[in-house]
């Protein structure tokens, strides 16, 4: 268990730095989480994060990598609809790293 400070607010996290309470998420904490990993969130990152949050809202789970790449491809053009592009943005893996910044729980299982 840990905590993250962002803009004067304290957020509780689990052992791996994922938000303990999904409802406590806001843009400030996403920025701070990314800074901890030496990552600056650009508009490109936010496109992915926003999609993840929308998908989660509807399905209560992060999208499969393939669903994510397809959605990003539709939105931003075919050249970006691939996992290479997503790994460039989120080198620790789009499923895990992007989920973390989006305030979603970590995908579990054999993934």
């Amino acid at each position, binding site marked *: 268990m840990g905590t993250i400070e962002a803009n004067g607010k304290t957020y509780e996290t689990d*052992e*791996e730095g994922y938000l303990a309470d999904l409802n406590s998420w806001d843009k400030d904490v996403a920025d701070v989480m990314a800074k901890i990993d030496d990552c600056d969130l650009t508009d490109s990152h936010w496109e992915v994060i926003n999609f993840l949050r929308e998908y989660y809202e*509807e*399905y*209560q*789970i992060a999208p*499969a*990598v*393939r*669903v994510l790449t*397809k959605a990003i491809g539709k939105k931003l053009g075919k050249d970006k609809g691939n*996992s290479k592009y997503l*790994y460039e943005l989120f080198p620790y*893996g789009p*499923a*895990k790293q992007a989920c973390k910044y989006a305030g979603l*729980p970590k*995908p*579990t*299982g*054999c*993934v």
Partner: protein
Amino acid sequence: MADFEIPQLKEYPVIPTIQEGVMAHSKPFVAKEEFQQQLGFPGELVDNWQQVAYDKMEELNGKYRSLQVFLDSCVKCGACTDKCHYYLGTSDPKNMPVARQDLYRKVYRRKFTFAGKYFPKLVGAVDLTKEVLDDWYSYFHQCSQCRRCSVFCPYGIDTAEISMAAREVMDCIGVGQKYCNEIIAKVYKIGNNLGLPEPALADTLEGLEEDIEDDTGVAVKLPLDQKGAEILLVTPSADFFAEPHVDGLIGYAKVFHEAGISWTLSSHASEAANFGMFIGSYENMRKVSLRIREAALDLGVKRIIFGECGHAWRVAYSFLNTLAGPFDFLDPKYPVPQHIMEFTYDLIQRKAITLDKSANDDMVLTYHDSCNVARASRMGPMPGGQFVLPREVIKACCNHFYDMPQDTIHDATYCCGGGGGLLTDDLMELRVKGAMPRMEALKHVVEEHGVTHMAAICAICKSQFTKVLPYYGFKMDSIVSVHQLVSNAIVLGNKQ
């Protein structure tokens, strides 16, 4: 890239000089109270934990005769010492299988043998102290239960069973591992390891149908909860989510399509994996297994086929009938259960599908035998079928295939480094180091034969390699599903 030293790949395997205690710090996160309780275990370390542990050990002695035989019969010959990938990758002597077994054996001796009760010092018997418990938690979570050591043990002692027993004892005193126990709780609550609810699964499958049609012009279906289908496919939920797993799932769908047979997935049994085995819990393993029986009955299928998942196939092949049988309601003409590899192999033998090998000409392939398939199960009608069938299917799909060195394949295969409930980020150092022997063997065929891709039939292996390959200078996508190769090569719409 990493805050630990990545092992060097050598030209030929070298047994490392021991470095005592270098992996003592490696411990997975402890399971939270709520997950412990959902599995029927105490939420946290119980007050009289030592006595509870001894009682549990006594129960296991009576329950699993094999366990007691393994604990009594070791003669310390040393044959196993250099056979564990975690020892070879970490140099920590407690990762020698005999030393790992002895962590449990020394307590067993103290409580349950004459010599240990009266002359403990003479036979290295000790009480289960907090220090010993800490060692258990650390080193029984540095065993992937791959059973390579047991192949080389003259007595056939199976360290995996001792690891499972130790984890069961720890769970029963309230010290469970987060990764496994959280996942089993998810299976009970949602139906699969991922926590993928039915609407998300339906949406994912629909998306895949679109993709296949865009790609091939053929409407290949991935049916969900279709009553009256001939076949129920039970596959790891990673097949719905991760790469390259999902390409394998597409492959199964195309094979069923070409075979012209009706099949369905189940939202109730949307997981082949059974982590109950990793934690040595018969009750949890049974509860997870029963979902498959329930789904098969509910959907009225005639056959059950398992997708590419290593330990699921061990549970299915070796234990399913005892855990969830009898399956007298299924068609007795077919094995219960059947592996997707058996199904595809049979179609290839009968020339019932057409495969265009040139579709995989951009790859030079090798095959990683997954430990639970290789050493704990079989496939097809012949001994060793679990080695033959996947290779024959691969060779039917591609023109370029080379095996890795003999002492690293078949029943001597090395674990991917992430099996047995260790595929979690909090054990990344262990996973990277434990992959070293497999990476060394891969490097050999890369240099010798220009191998570009390694195929596997286990969701854990695929995810583990995706993660660890880059640490050794390989591309993350050089791991592929066997049915991904089938998917590339299969000619659709050919058979009526």
